[in-house]
């Protein structure tokens, strides 16, 4: 990957975070909003592979950890690194994924990422169950819908280039 691509990914990363903390609020329905950061990590991992996926997963997770309670520092980082690496195994260079497959990868990735996060924070089982149904499931559905739109738009752009 050349320097220009790295620069573009860096800009995308910054944009994504700023969107998540500001515009993300406008899209909230009943306090449930899409997770742009996970969409970005999955998209990057699928396009550029596991090394790039876990690199950006690490930094995205770290940025989220900055604002989380101090005693949980590292939980997002590890969860996002694993997400980037695992999803990166489905790199486009070796495997072509259509839109439903990418969306399914996003949904599974979201659940896996959340489960790792809950595991690392050491929350009680009751709390995790409650959070799973009140936060993880609705946010996953919302993120999948937004992610499908993003994947569709990006694939359209790619086709036009071809």
């Amino acid at each position, binding site marked *: 990957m050349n320097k220009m691509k790295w620069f573009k990914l860096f800009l995308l990363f910054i944009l994504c975070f700023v969107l998540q903390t500001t515009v993300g609020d406008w899209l909230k329905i009943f306090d449930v909003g899409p997770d742009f950061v996970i969409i970005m990590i999955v998209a990057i991992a699928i396009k550029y592979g596991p090394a790039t996926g876990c*690199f950006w997963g690490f930094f995205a997770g770290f940025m989220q950890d900055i604002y989380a*309670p101090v005693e949980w520092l*590292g939980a997002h980082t590890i969860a996002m690194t694993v997400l980037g690496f695992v999803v990166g195994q489905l790199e486009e260079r070796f495997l072509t994924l259509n839109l439903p497959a990418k969306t399914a990868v996003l949904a599974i990735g979201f659940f896996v990422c959340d489960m790792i996060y809950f595991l690392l924070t050491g929350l009680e089982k009751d709390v995790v169950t409650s959070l799973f149904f009140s936060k993880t499931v609705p946010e996953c559905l919302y993120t999948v819908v937004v992610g499908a739109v993003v994947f569709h738009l990006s694939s359209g752009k790619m086709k036009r280039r071809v």
Partner: protein
Amino acid sequence: MLRAFRFVVELFTQRHGIVAFVFFLLVGLLMRQAPNTVKQNVVSSILGSILYPAQMAMSSLDAYRSVVAENEQLKQENARLRQETYYASEGLQELTRLHALVRFDDKWGFPIVTARVVGHNPGRFLTTMVINRGTHHGVHENMPVFSMNGLVGKVTKASYGYARVQLLVDPNLKLSVMERRTRVVGFLESVDGLMLSAMVPTHAGVKVGDTLITSGLGGIFPKGIPVGTVKTVRQADLDVMRQMYVEPFQEFSTLEEVFVMEKEPDWIIQEMLDE
């Protein structure tokens, strides 16, 4: 320099990224194991140097976007205010009523700084907010922060032009509260970053719907700031104690403006904090 960069990139991309994965995973695990003081230092430096300027820029863009609508609104308001100058006495009465309504009275005897929320943590658990007032405006660490509805949290980090506010739902924030009817005192804390809970003696007779206020015992929050209502009460592990879940008066995700009370911690608490 370029060679070294290429070497690192090639090393990390070897074996389909497994080297990079193991490296980043180890760094993550090290972060999990680090002492809280180290974690706090890392968080503070990153927050102040990178995230706050970015959020501030985005917030400014947002403000610019709404400037036309705001201008129109201000014109209307200006016309309304011109009319109101002819009714000064009615205006004064209205001001007194509004003061009482938003609890702007001198109940606590401390100056108040009004601040706008310009950012918050991007994670799933809302525990921190950034406000556009800092030491330049008289805001310092450990000052109480509240809204028109009730207590919001306290200032944990104050820089020249902005400050970070630790919300009530942050598991690291624990405060002494008092039930308004029974006057029983308990410790309020967040169990999971979402819900607030407090333990009180069974004999106190705290019921669902009771109101909690700050007790003033911690030395940071003055007595009497509304905190929330008791949502559920259940038996704690000990028979003599009851655990109550508390719904805060203020919904933190919709918070736009807050008030910082310019109250320094009591001297004994200040000494302990300094130590």
